[in-house]
């Protein structure tokens, strides 16, 4: 079947089998390998992207469900020369080690901060319950999200 997706601002019409997952379209057909797959029960959050502005697990969305939607992936929010405040905060606070969970974590954190005000440590921890990290113990991720909240409030994205 054909699906049309606007991914990181570019419209694509793609012919995919009916049982295709959004994550497979992103990784396989569009080569956006920054979105990762870390589990098969929709829990690890490595695959999180924004679908029409909401953080979702792209491993649990069929391509057909996303037909007509706008998708933003980690590749769409900033570049090494022009980082999103959340990306910068992850770097500045050493909020990543192996980097595998990082794209999903950043996409979740952006959605969390954009939809909440005045998050404290506990609220950030609860807000990130859908993303697993095995490296950092979350300590520096929480620091980074709190720091990014400040920067985003001050005019960042």
């Amino acid at each position, binding site marked *: 079947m054909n699906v049309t997706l606007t991914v990181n601002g570019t419209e694509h019409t793609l012919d995919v089998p009916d049982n295709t997952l959004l994550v497979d379209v992103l*990784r396989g057909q569009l080569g*956006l*390998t*920054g*979105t*990762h*797959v*870390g*589990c*098969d*029960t929709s*829990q*690890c959050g*490595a695959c999180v992207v924004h679908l029409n502005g909401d953080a979702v697990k792209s491993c649990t969305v069929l391509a057909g469900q996303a037909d007509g939607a706008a998708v933003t*992936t*980690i*590749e769409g929010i*900033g*570049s*090494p020369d022009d*980082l999103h405040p959340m*990306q910068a905060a*992850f*770097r*500045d606070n*050493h909020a*990543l*080690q*192996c*980097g*595998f*969970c*990082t*794209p999903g974590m*950043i996409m979740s954190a952006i959605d969390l901060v954009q939809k909440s005000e005045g998050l404290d*440590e*506990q609220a*950030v*921890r*609860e807000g*990130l*319950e859908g*993303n*697993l*990290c*095995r*490296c*950092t*113990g*979350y*300590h*520096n*991720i*929480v620091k980074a999200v709190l720091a990014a909240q400040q920067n985003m409030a001050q005019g960042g994205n």
Partner: protein
Amino acid sequence: MASQNGIGAAVKRKEDARFITGMGRYTDDLGAHGQTYAMFARSPHARAKIVNIDTAAAAATDGVVAVFTGADLKADGIGDLPCGWLVKSKDGSDMIQPPHPPIAVDAVNYVGEPFALVIGETLAAAKNGAEALSVDFEELPAVVDLASAARTAQIHETVPNNQCYDWELGDKAATDAAFEKAHHVTRMDIVNNRLIPNAIEPRAALGEYDAAAGSHTLHTTSQNPHLERLVLAAFVNVAPEAKLRVISPDVGGGFGSKIFVYAEETAVIWAAGKTRRPVKWTAERSESFLADAHGRDHVTHAELALAEDGEFLGLRVQTIANMGAYLSTFASSVPTYLYGTLMAGQYKTPAIYVEVQSLFTNTAPVDAYRGAGRPEATFVVERLVETAAREIGMDATDLRRRNFIQPTDFPYETPVALTYDTGDYEASLDKALAHVHYAAFAQRRDASEAAGKKRGIGFSCYIEACGLAPSQVAISLGAGVGLFEVGEVRVDVTGSVTVVTGSHSHGQSHETTFAQIISEKLGVPFENVTVLHGDTGRSDYALGTYGSRSLAVGGSAIVKATDKIIAKGKKIAAYMLDANADDVEFEDGSFNVTDSNQSLTFAEVAFAAYVPAKYPLDELEPGLSEKAFYDPPNFTYPAGAHVCEVEVDPETGVVEVVQFVAVDDFGNIVNPMVVEGQVHGGLAQGIGQALLEHGVYDDTGQLLSGSYMDYTMPRADDLPSFTVDTTTTPCTHNPLGVKGCGEAGAIGSTAAVINAVTDALGVASIAMPATPETVWRTARGE
């Protein structure tokens, strides 16, 4: 030089730019033209004979390229997966290593063991083909319970009583004598729960065969690609070493589980050669649960003998260690040389005797997982010490101080075969107690009590042997490989530097910290240093990353190579400046002639090295590229004090970690930001073991905790922010004075948590993980 990006600076990581923008390249991100997909057919039974596998329907399935069984690999000369460490039993006999074909041939011995692989044009085709296999299994009773595994059905024909070895360490007679004169003996039965590593990137492999060159290339998620190549070439016979290149690209965490040589990548690279097509496999998480090597899983009885004043007189430990169904790559060494040798802990216990019986069961193989043996040893020692303090009515910190090895005692030879080079255990404990406000704990406990909660505090003063390892010591104890590391420093013509290391980074930040070392030693700007790793085609044979060794061993190799660079640079500078080489000094990135104002920058000397206009080439080769192998003279001994404070809701059994303080002595520190991050991650895993994580099989050998629905991974809201600090006694025997920090968090923390929970509940012991129901029942006195 005191560079802002040199040793000791909290430099932001080079790696991050690609990871935070989605440009990391992990194995599953790679593809090859004409790529096929492998699906492994896995045993649904914990123990069964394979009577027959009918592959006809699978082979006829749409899109299936090939179907291979274990018999096919065997017929092609593919050998067994070996274990690299020979442990001997008490009677001097060698451990028994059962045959471990990568793909099962005659029998399957754990749920998830692969018995065939199907190669498809698509993953769906491979899966369809695997489902079409018709297999006739003859089920046999499974051996699952570890404590009774020596007395039940025999799993392997060659292994009576399912016993791999029955090992001992220490002086039995002296230890028994110590117990004879004890004033008090503390006795405990301890179960160290099975863990499943769960790096967030699942294992993966992409095998390619270049028919023109007759060579294989394997991209895989390995912590040590050279070891992978050695085993695949020399033991498994996939291809000659020189015709096999193993590349570990970005790897998403390892924690030990990606050290080992597994069935899947073995079969994938072999199948690429057979099918003349690239073959790719990426584990689904359910496969990771079933078939990654698990960790821990001990049953122990331990006893500590004390004099009336609390002096430790002797320690006796009897452990049964679970090997799972087969010996994984380093499995035999974990409960022996990485466990028994650590039983002295931080204490002057004069007599120690450890017995370890390793048994096979019908469960996934068990091997090194972050800490590997040392967390288990710390758990035994620190649970015993804390319990002894409670039994004799002494403050748990005072009892530890009474027995600490003192700074003046180093080098200190333990009764269990190690020689600690340096340390100051009391300094770490003092600092930790200050951070945790120990003096005010009683008030906090009262406040909790008033709110209907129970508060407890627990300590753990751990030591670990890291920086694996002095090759000759390890080889004399059964290691099948040397354990040195290689570092190559290539100075480019323009003075930038490329470092090639045999260590691999899968989160540890080598690209940053190794560049800091170069920047410090050679005065080269940090931005001008590139670190390459993870490719047998780039670096010399080396041993890779495990056992908190990368900086202490790999970093030392790099320092040795920079020393050679400097020595050669001095000679070049001497010729250029018409000075005597002995009069040239290197400082802050400049070669200076002493007592003169003559000097050359590092970049000028580098350029001269490659444009050798002014020096005699018969005496001095052109170029400025040096390599060094470093074999450590001893282990390093990171140590520290961890303190955990918990609040328990007795009504539900929920344990909240309200405070966790870790004060560690890692020797000198290259990048404190990175070190803190390593500690945080280790703490999460150690706390996870204590409260959340448990690999559970049922009586028939089915894995019950086989997904994130049932295996409790620590999440952000399960953990507190940590207080992490350090003390410093530099390692005395490596050029950086570093000890290693990768495993400490996981080694020290678990005992501190359980000591805190048992303190809160006022009980002697509790099963791990201390889940809400377990705590609730324990609080009720069950």
